[in-house]
């Protein structure tokens, strides 16, 4: 029974990894944002294939049905990735605000210079 969920988890991890590589190759995903995805996919693949490791880990964290432990770990990886995105978005927002301010100030200076030249 468990072999089916093992195969499914392995396939999901493998497809995810393939998609990530494809995205990087096409320059649609920067490496710095791909690392957490790759790590997550590899963890899922390894644990899906390596039954003994998964069972050991699930006993360690007190989950008695190993596939549940796999899902718990996958969800945790997802949360780490989401938090990382929130940090990235916050930085982008700060950068965007600074650029907007600088741009508006420069535009004002350009207009003043143009007026001076026009006189």
């Amino acid at each position, binding site marked *: 029974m468990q072999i089916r969920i093992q195969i499914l988890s392995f396939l999901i991890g493998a497809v995810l990894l393939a998609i990530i590589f494809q995205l990087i190759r096409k320059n649609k995903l920067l490496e710095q944002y791909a690392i957490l995805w790759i790590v997550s996919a590899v963890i899922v693949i390894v644990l899906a294939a390596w039954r003994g490791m998964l069972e050991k880990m699930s006993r360690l964290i007190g989950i008695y049905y190993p596939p549940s432990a796999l899902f718990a770990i996958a969800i945790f990886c997802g949360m780490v990735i989401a938090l990382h995105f929130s940090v990235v978005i916050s930085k982008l*927002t700060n950068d965007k*605000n600074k650029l*907007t301010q600088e741009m*508006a*100030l420069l535009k*004002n*200076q350009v207009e003043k210079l143009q007026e001076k030249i026009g006189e």
Partner: protein
Amino acid sequence: MENKKEKFLAIVPAFNEQGAIGSVVKEILGINLPVDVVVIDDGSKDRTGETAYKSGAEVIKLPINLGIGGAVQTGFKYAVINDYDFAVQVDGDGQHIASEISKLVKALKEDSADVVIGSRFLEKQGFKSSKARQIGITMFKIVNSLFIRQKITDNTSGFRAYNKRAILFLSENYPCDYPEPESVVILKKNGFKLVEVPVKMREREHGESSISSFKAVYYMVKVFLAIFVDLFKAKKDKIPE
């Protein structure tokens, strides 16, 4: 230094205030102080910027709406670039009375304060506002006064004057949205001297408060979170002398 003429700037953040901004600018230019006015048009969809320019203000037009903090900070940066000695912040909606600016400037000089906040509540000026807003203002008063160990009665007031040192600091460190209560804590924590003076304010004529009742809860949560986090932040190491 003594002979050098002091440059004085009024920073006016405005978002969709074409109805009020013209008279706001003219009123400031009419006070008994040599003052330049810069209006920060925070991505308005109406003719706020054009109206302000025609009324005699310098206009900085932000292509994207940044929120009032981002707009005011642009004003601080403008003041730094153009080497102003003092700045006063006046809302673009006509709520603040330009003739009261002299009270802020007086306190800035006589009390050697870095920042002067115009307060509606220091003296009973009969300022009416909704129950919900009064509760919020009281909460800021209690929390901020506790945190910074100085009684500030009007933390949400955007009617403030700054000296050069404060301008330089705030041009790098100013919260982007709902900045007023938080900036009180940031400034005090970084060693700036704050003084409150009583001022009169008008009831709003045009437009509406940047805080609708819809956003009030978010506003309170965001500002209190920011203030709470600020308490644990390291002191900024680059404070201009």
